[in-house]
């Protein structure tokens, strides 16, 4: 281990991130858990859920969002998919010497507006400045507390469950990537950065017994499915022709050699529900803001040799692997 170093792929949310956590960080922390979940119940505080997230997206401003609103959405979404309604946030800013005050103001104004819109105000924070070159403009860490919704027991995946996605995938990763220095090609793709709580609330209001939820951020839909399949010892089959992808996003993925399944989203919800609830869950998602293009995209089965399979639109099939993680550094 002495000669091993952090490489960019360790931050990609894929297999290497998982390895870093399970083989280095968790043992070093002395954690008894085999993973650090995105959000966790506060010990001794029934019903309170706590989470934290860091944001290093580059560029700071991109079509459809910026690091400020993203830092709010990322954290409230971790709470939402854990079944908790966001209550309040904290925000830590690390600023690079030389950054314009105008930038700081624009970013924090955006964060404040996003937090208010989510009903989760930013109630505490910290600001640090480092010398020029010791950070790249601005990094943000937010933490959030939410209250668990009793109806959302999230018992976990079951054989026969249907997989739902709340809308077209891969927009965030492509929007950020397409504006990145050196890869500035013309595309109209906008980030989907948004809170997913309204989608979760719509499922609750419809009385859906949601078995599991996740927001497919880094690593995309592929990582979510790979993780769930592994955690529950089940398999998942996705149907390519049912997965919504905007044509311009698909074109950009094709140019960049990316698989939309592995590209990040920042305002999408993946939900697993019993087959008999799928139609009602779909209707509930479609009635909620941001869920207009929701779709049923796959099915959970008993474990086969392959954890996640994609049925392609030609009737072929292929594996969906946990992405390695280096494709899109600093997208969130």
């Amino acid at each position: 281990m002495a000669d091993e170093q952090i490489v960019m792929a360790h931050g990609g949310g894929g297999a290497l991130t998982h390895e870093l956590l399970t083989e280095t960080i968790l043992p070093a922390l002395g954690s008894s858990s085999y993973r650090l979940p995105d959000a966790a119940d506060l010990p001794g505080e029934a019903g309170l859920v706590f989470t934290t997230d860091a944001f290093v997206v580059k560029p700071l401003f991109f079509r459809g969002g910026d690091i400020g609103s993203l830092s709010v959405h990322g954290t409230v979404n971790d709470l939402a998919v854990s079944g908790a309604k966001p209550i309040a946030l904290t925000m830590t800013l690390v600023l690079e010497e030389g950054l314009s005050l105008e930038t700081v103001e624009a970013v924090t104004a955006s964060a404040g507006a996003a937090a208010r819109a989510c009903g989760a105000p930013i109630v505490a924070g910290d600001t640090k400045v480092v010398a020029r070159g010791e950070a790249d403009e601005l990094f943000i860490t937010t933490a959030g507390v939410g209250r668990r919704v009793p109806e959302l027991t999230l018992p976990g995946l079951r054989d026969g469950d249907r997989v739902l996605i709340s809308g077209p995938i891969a927009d965030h990763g492509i929007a950020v990537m397409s504006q990145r220095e050196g890869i500035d090609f013309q595309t109209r793709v906008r980030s989907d950065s948004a809170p997913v709580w309204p989608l979760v609330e719509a499922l609750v209001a419809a009385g859906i017994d949601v078995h599991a939820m996740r927001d497919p951020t880094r690593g995309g839909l592929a990582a979510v499915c790979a993780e769930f399949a592994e955690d529950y010892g089940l398999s998942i089959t996705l149907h390519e022709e049912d997965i919504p992808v905007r044509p311009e996003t698909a074109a950009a993925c094709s140019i960049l050699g990316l698989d939309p399944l592995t590209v990040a989203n920042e305002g999408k919800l993946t939900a697993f529900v019993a087959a008999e609830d799928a139609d009602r869950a779909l209707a509930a998602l479609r009635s909620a803001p941001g869920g207009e293009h929701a779709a049923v995209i796959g099915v959970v089965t008993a474990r086969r040799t392959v954890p996640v399979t994609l049925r392609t639109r030609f009737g072929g099939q292929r594996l969906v692997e946990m992405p390695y993680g280096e494709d899109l550094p600093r997208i969130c």
Partner: protein
Amino acid sequence: MDRQASDAIIARIAGATEAVGRTIRIMEVCGTHTHAIGRGGLRAVLPKGIALISGPGCPVCVTSQRDVERMLLLADRGDVTVCTFGDMIRVPGVTTSLERRRANGADVRVVYSPTDALELAASRPEREVVFLGVGFETTAPGIAATVLQAQSRGIANYSVYACHKLIVPAMEAVLSEGSRIDGFLTPGHVSVIIGPEAYEALSQTHGIPCVATGFEPTDVLEGIAQLVEHVRDRRPGSFVQYRRAVRPGGNRRAWDTLMRVFAIADAEWRGLGNIPESGLAFRPEFAAYDAVTRFDLPEVAPVSLAGCRCGDVLKGAIEPQECPHFGRPCTPRNPLGPCMVSSEGSCAARYKYG
């Protein structure tokens, strides 16, 4: 294309394969085809009598280990920014990789176009910028164009480590190695540049049909259908499926740009060794843009990666799964060789997509 149309093509393939009455071995020369076949899950829909064999058309994979080691030497120089297509960054050297050198402070950047590298050089005249030129007739003209631009704009800190390859000599080499191939799916984009005529001599000499094929899964299915029908009818020749892009005679302008900067030269390929007139070398008048002479890079002794059988995979001698290291320990995360690294590599495609 809808499911009905693709089903009709698959039925055509099945009919012609049955008429031939034996296994038909089709080599998809191009790594992008390998990738498209994997992503489309096409193996699962083809009849059992079709064997798809991946050829030597993954640019990163065919780059010789000596070239990889010399690229790493470039990255070690403090005065050089190395720009590369993303696939190259994790290709293992004997002791390290560009990714690991970068983690150690080397200035290695992933770009999507050689133009990005040229603009980086223009914006930072105090620093040397080297673009790692790998690839075939598709990427080489664009790289040649950046050299011409550097010359006309007086950008003196830009150079290229050029190890481009030509596709037809590699197909000849595969056949001379004794691989039994019934037909070639030839690369659509290379064919756009060199024209379908470029395969005619090889096709007639060996009696093997070639079909220049596009990259959508339906293109690949249609290309396979045409190939199998030509095999059934014992009809060699160079044919075009990818008609929306491939024109007779190819793209002369791109080819002329290429030939202004580079001349055809011998090249070393992973697995296939030295193949006469299979690569591109800087013409003497452009030597200033050749990173090898500019930085006086030393010759590197031939080296091989311990245990790696990428060479045999590239020749079509073994299937990726027949390599004793496939999947254990060699995976995209922990690649022993380049075929497991590149998205166009046949091992990575098989590992990823099954």
